[in-house]
C-alpha cells in the first residue's frame, strides 16, 4: 500500500496543477490517470483564456447570468494566475494575453453586450464596450458587419497541448508520484482513509480529489456518490498555418464562436458547437471514443468565423477534431469538498481550462486548512440533496 497525503484521480489540468501546488508546499501526492496526462478536455480544448462572461450564461435568462457574473471574482484570480504561470514553471506555454473581443452584429446583441459589461464591471472586471470602428482599429481583420465589441485587455490564449504536460513534469519534480495509464478499479473509504485499488497497486490517503472531467460521475460512483456532471462532445477546427494576423481571443455575444491564432500560426475555431457522442453496447455515452462531427455544426461554426473575419474563407481547414468535456446540472463548475464525505474533493464542469490553475490553487490551499471563500459559488454543497440517500 502506497501512502500519500492526497490522492488525485484525473491527470488533466486541475489534477496536475493541484498536485503541483500541494507538492510545492511539501505534501505527498499521488496522481493517477487511466490514460496519458492531459489527453482529455485539458489537452483537446482550444486554449481560450476568456474572462468576459460567457455567452452560454447569457442565453438562458437573467437569473443565470446574474449568478454567473459572480464567477468574475474567480476570473480576476485567474488573470493573475495565468500571468505568472510561465515564470513559475520556467517554461514557454505560448501564453498570450493581448486582449479579447466579444463582438456583436445586431442592435439586440449590442444591448446584450451592454448589460453584460455592466454586470462585469460591478464585479470588478476591467471590460469595456467599444464601437465597431474601434474594434476594427484594434483588430483590423474584423468584418464591417461588427457594430460593437466587449473588450477585455487580459484575455488571450495558451497552448493547451503544453500546459498540462508542463505542470505534470513540474509536479513530478516536486515529488508527486505520477501514475499514467493506471485505471482506478475501486475506491473505498476505510475509517478516515481513502483506498484506491488499481490492477497493480493500492494507494491510501486521507484526502482525495476527483477531477476526471466527463469521467467524474463514473469515478464518484465508486464512492456511491452522485456528481451531476454530464459529458458534452464539442467540435473544434484547425486551419493550416498562416502568417500571424489574429493576436486576440475573438468571441461572439450572440453566436457560438471562439477564435484565436496559435503560436505556430494555425487558426483555431470553435465556440461550443456540438458533436455526436458515440454510444457503447449498452446504449450509454461512450467516453473513450471520439464523437462524430455534426455537419451542420461544422458548417455553421465556420460560417460565424467568416462573418466575423472574412479573410478566413480562403484559408484551408486541415483538421476538425472533437473532444469530450463536462457540464454541470446548473452550468456552473463544481469545485470543493463534498459535505457528505469529508476529505473527498471534486473539481470540474466548465471553464476548467481558463479557471483550472485557479481552482487547483484554491483547492490545494483549502485542503491544507486555509479555506478559500472564493470557491463558495462553485461549492458542491448546492447539490447535496442528490447525495441525501448516497454515500457510505
Amino acid at each position, binding site marked *: 500500500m502506497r501512502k500519500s497525503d492526497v490522492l488525485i484521480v484525473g491527470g488533466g489540468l486541475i489534477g496536475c496543477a493541484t498536485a503541483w501546488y500541494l507538492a510545492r508546499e511539501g505534501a505527498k501526492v499521488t496522481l493517477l490517470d487511466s*490514460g*496519458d496526462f*492531459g*489527453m482529455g478536455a485539458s*489537452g483537446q480544448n482550444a486554449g481560450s483564456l476568456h474572462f468576459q462572461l460567457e455567452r452560454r450564461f447569457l442565453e438562458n435568462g437573467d437569473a443565470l447570468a446574474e449568478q454567473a457574473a459572480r464567477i468574475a471574482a474567480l476570473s480576476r484570480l485567474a488573470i493573475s494566475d495565468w500571468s505568472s504561470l510561465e515564470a513559475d514553471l520556467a517554461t514557454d506555454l505560448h501564453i498570450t494575453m493581448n486582449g479579447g473581443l466579444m463582438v456583436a452584429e445586431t442592435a439586440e446583441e449590442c444591448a446584450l453586450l451592454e448589460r453584460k459589461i455592466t454586470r462585469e464591471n460591478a464585479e470588478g472586471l476591467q471590460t469595456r464596450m467599444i464601437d465597431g470602428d474601434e474594434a476594427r482599429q484594434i483588430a483590423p481583420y474584423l468584418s464591417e458587419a461588427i457594430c460593437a465589441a466587449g473588450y477585455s485587455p487580459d484575455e488571450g490564449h495558451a497552448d493547451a*497541448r*503544453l500546459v498540462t*504536460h508542463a505542470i505534470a513534469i513540474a509536479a513530478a519534480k516536486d515529488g508527486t508520484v505520477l501514475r*499514467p*495509464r493506471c485505471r482506478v478499479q475501486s475506491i473505498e473509504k476505510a475509517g478516515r482513509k481513502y483506498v484506491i485499488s488499481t490492477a497493480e497497486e493500492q494507494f491510501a490517503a486521507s484526502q482525495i480529489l476527483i477531477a476526471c472531467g466527463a469521467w467524474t460521475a463514473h469515478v464518484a460512483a465508486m464512492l456511491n456518490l452522485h456528481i451531476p456532471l454530464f459529458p458534452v462532445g464539442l467540435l473544434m477546427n*484547425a*486551419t*493550416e498555418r498562416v502568417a500571424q494576423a489574429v493576436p486576440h481571443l475573438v468571441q461572439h455575444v450572440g453566436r457560438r464562436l471562439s477564435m484565436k491564432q496559435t503560436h*505556430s500560426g494555425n487558426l483555431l*475555431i470553435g465556440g461550443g458547437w456540438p458533436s455526436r457522442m458515440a454510444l457503447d453496447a449498452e446504449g450509454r455515452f461512450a467516453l473513450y*471514443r*471520439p464523437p*462524430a*462531427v455534426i*455537419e451542420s455544426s*461544422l*458548417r455553421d461554426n*465556420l*460560417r460565424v*468565423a*467568416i462573418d466575423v473575419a472574412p479573410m*478566413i*474563407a*480562403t*484559408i*484551408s*481547414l*486541415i*483538421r*476538425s*477534431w472533437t473532444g469530450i468535456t463536462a457540464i454541470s446540472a446548473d452550468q456552473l463548475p463544481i469545485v470543493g469538498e463534498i459535505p457528505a464525505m469529508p476529505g473527498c474533493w471534486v473539481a470540474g464542469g466548465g471553464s476548467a481550462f481558463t479557471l483550472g490553475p485557479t481552482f487547483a490553487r484554491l483547492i490545494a490551499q483549502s485542503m491544507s486548512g486555509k479555506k478559500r471563500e472564493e470557491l463558495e459559488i462553485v461549492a458542491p454543497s448546492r447539490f447535496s440533496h442528490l447525495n441525501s440517500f448516497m454515500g457510505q
Partner: protein
Amino acid sequence: MTNHSDVAIIGGGPAGQAAALTLDDLKLKTVVIDEQPRAGGQILRQPPRSFQIPAWMEDRTYAPLVKLLRRFEAQTSINWIGSHSVIGLRRRPDGLFTLTLCSPDGLRLVTAARVLIAAGCQDLAVPLPGWTLPGVYSAGGMQALLKAQRIVPGGHIVLAGTHPLQLLIAAQIVEAGGSVAAVLFSQPRGTMLKAGIRNGLRALDQLSAAFPAIRALATLRSHGVKVLYDAPIQAICGTDRVAAAQHPGGEIACDAVGLCYGFVSQSSLPRMMSAKMRKAGPAGGWATLCDEWMQSSIPGLYVAGETTGIAGANAAMASGKIAGFGIAAELGAISQDEAARRVSRHRANHRSLLRFARLLDEIADPRPFFPALRDDTLVCRCEEVALAQIDPVLDGRSANAVKLVTRCGMGLCQGRNCEPTLLRLLDNPNDPGFTARFPARPVAIGDLAT
C-alpha cells in the same frame, strides 16, 4: 448539388475500374471518384490528354491493366468524377452514404446506397539524415513524374531501399533517357534470394510476375548501372540540395535520390468511418478488414485493392471484381448463387496473387534496414518535429499523446507520412495510431461554410 448513385467508388485504379465495369454490366448506376483528372490509378497514371506520347506503358506487364483502363474509359454509362478528393464520408441513419467531394471549384455532395473504397496506397515515407533536402523523392513519386509528366527528376539519380520495384523504376528512368548512378539495396542479395526461394514454392503459379524484375536487371546491366546489395543508404548529403548518397561502402555522387522501402494503404477514410483495421504488412500502415465479398465491418462499406493490404495491381483488379459482384448481389442486381459462381475464378486468382504478394513482402521486408536517425532528423516534415523532440516523450505514451505534446502528425498531411515512423519508435503492438479526423484532405473554409 447532390447526385445519387447505387454505388460510389472511391478510386479509379484497377480495383475501382474492375468493380465499376462489373456493376455497370449489371445495370447499377455507378460513380467513380478520383483525385486525378483521368482514370488509371498510380499504376497507370495517365498524362494529360494534350500530351502526345507514342508507346505509353507498352511493356507487356501492363497489358491487362491498359486493356481494362481502355474498356473503363469507353464505358460512358459509368459516371466519372475526376479531379475531386473525397474529404468526408458518412453513413446516414437510413443506411445511405454521403460523400463530401472537394475540388478547386468547391464542394459537392454525392449520395450512394453502397460505397467501395479502392483508394490505393502511397510510398512508405522513410526518414533518414538528409531526407528533407530538395532532390529527395519517394521512388513512386519519381515514377509518377515519369508516367504522367514525362519528366526525369534529376540528372544523376540514386534509388535506394529494400523494395525490388526500384529495379523497374530505375530501368524506366534509363529507358526514358535518364541517368541512374546506382540502385542500392539495403539487404544482402542472399537474404533476398533465400526469402524468394523459401516462399517461391508457395507462389509458383505467379512466378512470371517476377519476370519484369529480371528484365529490368538486364536493362540496367546493359546501361552499365550498378546494382549494389548489402548497401543500406545511411544518409543523404548536400547543403542546399542533394549531392551524394552515403552507404557503408562510400558516397555516390548524385543530384536526386528515390527512396523505395515499400507501400502503405491509404486508410484515412475507412478509419474516419471507424471500420475495423489490421496492421498491414511489414512496411507498416493499416489495412481495412473485410469479409469474403470485400465488405468492411461497416455495413454497406466495401473495400478493394490496396485498401485491404498491399498486393499489387492484378490482385486489386481481382478484388475489385469480387467487390463488384458482392455489392451487386446485395443490391439484388444478381442472385447470390450467380454471384458466387461468377466470382469463383476471381477468388482463386486473388488468392494466388496474394501468395505472391506475401513473397514480395518478405523479399522487400524493410524492418531490419530502416536507417538510423540522428537527433536532428525530422520525423514529421509538416510540423518539422525532429527525433530529439519525440524521443524524450515516447515513454510508454500513445501515438495520440505524442502527437499532442510534440505536434508530430498535426500538419497538412494529417500524419499519413509520419505515423508509421512514430509507431515504430513507440513499438507498442496495441497502439491504434492517430485518431483519423475530418477532412481527409485540406479544404478551404469558405467552401465548407456554404
